[in-house]
């Protein structure tokens, strides 16, 4: 295969990696790559809207629903990477516009607050009461300029009794109201069901769906891009339906 052909086949970064030993290339492939596509762009744009939203009494929220392994988490991580915390040691506080946590395995409000405090790298007392943690979270949101809270794996909500589910939903709701932070809840379809059960929730959380991938132009483009960025020495021709 001619070098010129290789050049046109791969992105400059993938091409640079071609000369590296296997372990380096394998690592690069495993690190993955962010590939944009129309639906992801739309959702990211909505998230940007939330981030820029003025602080009002009823902040808009988002419920991102997607089947498992459908790129939901990479969209969230992409959004995070676009708005990283500013850890400048010379600054008086960390500026942290976006915080992301995974919902605890069961709808446990105290564990939820602990996860937020962990994500903020805050010093806190794990055995504090729920009220104390709640006020510390709100206080830190204000201090650190948090505007968007992402709660991934929100479907864990349905792992508990109806009472605990309700408590958890209420905690989410009041956290959003009191700290004027937009919440992006993300999870598989079960999350949607857990949310619509509560009319108040469904009116506050705009659902955004990430549909299952189906063969089509978009998938083809995506696969072609993936191939261009993957430092493999031979072409895979991923987008060809025959393979």
């Amino acid at each position, binding site marked *: 295969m001619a070098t010129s052909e290789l050049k046109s086949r791969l992105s400059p970064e993938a091409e640079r990696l071609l000369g590296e030993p296997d372990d380096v290339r394998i690592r690069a492939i495993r690190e993955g790559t962010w590939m944009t596509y129309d639906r992801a762009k739309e959702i990211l744009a909505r998230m940007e809207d939330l981030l820029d939203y003025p602080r009002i009494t009823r902040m808009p929220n988002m419920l991102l629903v997607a089947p498992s392994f459908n790129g939901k988490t990479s969209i969230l991580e992409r959004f995070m990477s676009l708005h990283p915390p500013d*850890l400048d*040691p010379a*600054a008086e*506080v960390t500026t942290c516009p976006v915080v*992301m946590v995974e919902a605890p395995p069961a709808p446990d409000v105290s564990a939820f607050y602990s996860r937020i405090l962990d994500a903020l790298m*805050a010093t806190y*007392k794990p055995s504090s009461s729920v009220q104390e943690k709640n006020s510390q979270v709100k*206080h830190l949101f204000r*201090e650190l300029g948090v505007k968007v809270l992402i709660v991934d794996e929100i479907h864990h909500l349905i792992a508990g009794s109806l009472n605990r589910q309700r408590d958890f939903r209420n905690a989410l709701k009041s956290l959003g109201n009191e700290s004027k932070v937009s919440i992006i809840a993300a999870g598989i379809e079960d999350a949607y069901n857990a949310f619509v059960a509560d009319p108040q929730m469904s009116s506050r959380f705009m659902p955004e769906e990430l549909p299952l991938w189906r063969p089509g132009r978009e998938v083809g483009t995506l696969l072609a891009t993936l191939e261009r960025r993957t430092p493999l020495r031979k072409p895979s021709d991923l987008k060809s339906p025959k393979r």
Partner: protein
Amino acid sequence: MKGLTSSLWPIRYKPYPDELLTSWLVRLAWGHGLKVQTFCNLIFGGQRQVWNRDVDRLGPDWLVNELADRTGTLRQVAHATTLRAYEGVLYPKFRAAGTLPWIQTLMMYHRKREGFGLQFCPVCLAEDEKPYYRRSWRVSFNTMCIRHQVMLRDRCAQCGAPVIFHRMEMGQGKVSEVGSMGNCHACGCPLADSPREEIWSYDEDALDFHAALCRAIAEEETQSVDLDVMRVMHQLVRLMLTRHKTVTLRQHVCGELQVTDLVKVSGRIGLETMPLMERHHLVQLVSWLMVDLAGRLEVAWLARAIRYNHLGKDFNEPPAWYQELIEKFADWRSRFQ
């Protein structure tokens, strides 16, 4: 912040100008949304007690370095929030035990922890974006705010309680309910609202001398403070407070200035545990002596308010100029010449 590990705290306020270590520590704890006690236990463990001793004075490395490292502050900047950093400025050598010359004690006053050891300027507190406490407010001779031309205060004008700002949160449910550090811990009233008392003095030159010291310490221009002068002044303060019957230096100076003596109790009690008004009075008297030390000491000596052996008593390695000056009074017979 997932995946990021950092030794830095999310809240990493740096010390304000001339801020006192505990003031900084309390701001950091409250900034984290925690009570001071909880914060300290979480950071330093239950073994290391912060609040049952004078940490501003002790300035332990484990505390100072931790705050420095976790807030991205230079260690020397953090160290400068302690009273230890006055070593070589106000006193020759730091000692962990006993009193340090010119450093107000928080210790027992009438058996309670009610030493009026921390002063404040109501105008400074009123002007602060977030009220905070200055290191120079722990210095005994610093009785006035030169910037605002008012007397400092050493207790709440409303209820008479000393300033113990970290106790603000006692009995409070949540940190969010705790007021500002600028409020009295006992009655809750803002210390910034205290009456603003004009600076008073007995003698213009003495006031200038005294004010220069206050300015140097408050503006953190400690290089302009002469340790030997501070040591001699401290020796004179001690002489003025001694209960020795043959030493009446204080009464003598009051007579010279024609002022009423404000010191209520002398002996045993040192300048560093005295209330503000008495301290201001004493430092004014000593400053008056310092303005013309040789001449005014001689007058005092001739009036038998002081004897040679007292001038050098318990004074370790006095500065040469002082030693020379007092040698003139060595021969008591010369009084009659």
